[in-house]
């Protein structure tokens, strides 16, 4: 009797088991996608103005001129910060410039891109800036924060896209590999995350008039010319002899994957995804190609000091613009003979973004791995002094013992007068939206 009961129980268990035995696998994906929006030419060309200060939300490049610090708010404009007292920087104004990602300052004139236009803005009074010049249609297309915009000639509007985060849950086959898309562009490339710092170049013309940009800036001012890298891998030459009225003189085809530019000793150092190009601009309106040093395909911010170029290569897990680089490293390149740059040494890095150097003090942003501070007084023996792990660092500018760092969560300023020790002096936080 007891036995048959048990057999019955067993049978029931089997049956219930069979009817409800299945794998239930849910996948929740979070991803960013893009949503298009239009900006009409009319709106675009009348919107440059000062507006009250706003919170930093989605920061781009940084630029320094005198006591002012400029922080790009991706595709919206530029924050102007009075940095006279580095321990307590004050937000002075916000310049609204639709489609902005790059900037350079010469005297009182701020040059900025505004989608397809190149704009000159008088910033003598930051709270009431004036648009003084505009080169219409200088850029044919562009990319900000990893998104390409284009100009729709039929509708006379700029078509751009916004990021949007999407969360989806669905039932999936349990044996299906979690989806892992690798499409996308180089997260290291400047239009997305900007990068390191350009040192003030000794001997450069009018150095005091121009400001200091990051090493991956696409704008560089040298010898009354503003050199701008366009998305079409061309270098555009703007004559700023008359600073209020920039004139586009010519364009030079540079090749594939051009990302950054900066002037050094009558030469232009052009960072590309496949290597470093050196152009001679002794005659500022006719730069010509001198040499190149090829490397594995990667994103490569560059800084130069004392004839040594420091290049970071970052391996990115995608097959976008930068390609699948194999290594994360810092390359030390001897450029004393500009016609023949020589790779001297490579150091292993974790996740390098931008970098900056000042008098042998080397600062490397390691993205989500933080900021690293090196002693590079001997370039063949670069030594790590300090690491700050709790910041997501993209871009630095070291200038006059103050290191300005832009990261995911704000602008940090450090005092680096003490050789062994960086000291945090202030922070302007990014307000998350």
């Amino acid at each position: 009797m007891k036995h048959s009961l048990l057999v019955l129980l067993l049978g029931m268990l089997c049956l219930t088991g069979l009817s409800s035995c299945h794998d239930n696998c849910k996948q929740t994906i979070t991803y960013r996608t893009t949503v298009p929006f239009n900006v009409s030419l009319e709106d675009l060309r009348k919107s440059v103005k000062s507006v009250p200060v706003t919170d930093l939300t989605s920061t781009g490049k940084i630029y320094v001129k005198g006591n002012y610090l400029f922080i790009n708010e991706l595709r919206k404009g530029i924050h102007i910060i009075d940095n006279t007292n580095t321990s307590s920087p004050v937000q002075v104004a916000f310049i609204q410039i639709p489609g902005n990602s790059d900037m350079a300052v010469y005297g009182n004139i701020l040059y900025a891109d505004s989608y397809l236009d190149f704009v000159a803005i008088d910033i003598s009074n930051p709270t009431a800036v004036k648009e003084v010049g505009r080169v219409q249609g200088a850029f044919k297309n562009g990319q900000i924060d990893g998104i390409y915009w284009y100009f729709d000639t039929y509708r006379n509007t700029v078509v751009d896209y916004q990021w949007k985060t999407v969360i989806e849950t669905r039932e999936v086959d349990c044996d299906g590999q979690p989806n892992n898309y690798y499409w996308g562009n180089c997260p290291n490339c400047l239009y997305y995350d900007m990068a390191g710092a350009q040192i003030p170049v000794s001997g450069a013309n009018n150095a005091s008039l121009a400001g200091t940009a990051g090493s991956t800036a696409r704008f560089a001012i040298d010898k009354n010319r503003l050199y701008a890298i366009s998305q079409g891998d061309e270098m555009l030459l703007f004559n700023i002899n008359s600073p209020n009225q920039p004139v586009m003189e010519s364009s030079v085809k540079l090749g594939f994957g051009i990302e950054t530019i900066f002037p050094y000793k009558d030469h232009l150092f052009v960072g590309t995804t496949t290597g470093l190009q050196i152009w001679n601009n002794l005659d500022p309106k006719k730069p010509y190609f001198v040499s190149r040093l090829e490397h594995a395909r990667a994103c490569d911010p560059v800084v130069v000091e004392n004839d040594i170029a420091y290049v970071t290569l970052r391996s990115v897990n995608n097959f976008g613009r930068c390609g699948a680089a194999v290594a994360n490293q810092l390359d030390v390149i001897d450029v004393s003979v500009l016609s023949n740059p020589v790779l001297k040494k490579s150091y292993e890095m974790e996740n390098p973004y931008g970098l900056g150097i000042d008098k042998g003090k080397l600062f490397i942003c390691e993205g989500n791995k933080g900021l690293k501070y090196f002693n590079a007084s001997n370039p063949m023996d670069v030594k790590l002094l300090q690491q700050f792990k709790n910041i997501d660092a993209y871009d630095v500018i070291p200038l006059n013992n103050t290191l300005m760092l832009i990261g995911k969560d704000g602008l940090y300023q450090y005092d680096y007068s003490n050789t062994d020790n960086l000291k945090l002096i202030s922070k302007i936080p990014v307000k998350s939206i």
Partner: protein
Amino acid sequence: MIHGNVMAMKKVLIVLLFLTGFHAVSGQDKIVTRKSRFVNFTELGVLLGNAYQITNSSGYSSPVLSKTSFSVQTFNGLRLIPNLAAGITVGIDWLGKYQILPISAGLRKTFGLEKSNRVKAFLGLDAGYGFTWLNDEIPWQTIKGSINISPAAGLMIPTGGDAFITVSAGYKHNELTITQGTDNIYGQTSVNNNRYDRMSIRIGVSF
């Protein structure tokens, strides 16, 4: 590299755990008597179920697949009162791409006379945590285990000696969470919550 070493060590430990379990079996073979309080159930078998993808991004469902996974487990415990033993159950379930190593508290309830040479019935219940040490995580991936529950009922067939051949059927619930991230600008992360509800059929030995 360090991570890899830890994984390797864990795997070695797991193997040792099994070996000692089986060693206990052979060691007890000769000396076990009905008076011994030690109870062992070592079983191998299959976990059966269906799997299908009901929805996907394009909105259609995939065909239902029958799934069969291999599973081993060993219960080692002590008889608390006649016909009831409590102990620890360790096993491995190979569930498609993932392996789960459940470590559970277990109970075994037998029916009938202890010294009977007739077929007896037994019930088992194991509940614990499914560890994921056997999985090698790919870059940007973390695999986390969760609870597992396994009730079963079966028959013990006497062999003439002190041991029994066991045949059992039951239910097994396993869970896994696989988190996959990237560092690209599309910021995609996926979290897979896998729940495996399977029917178990096992054969084994017990003494």
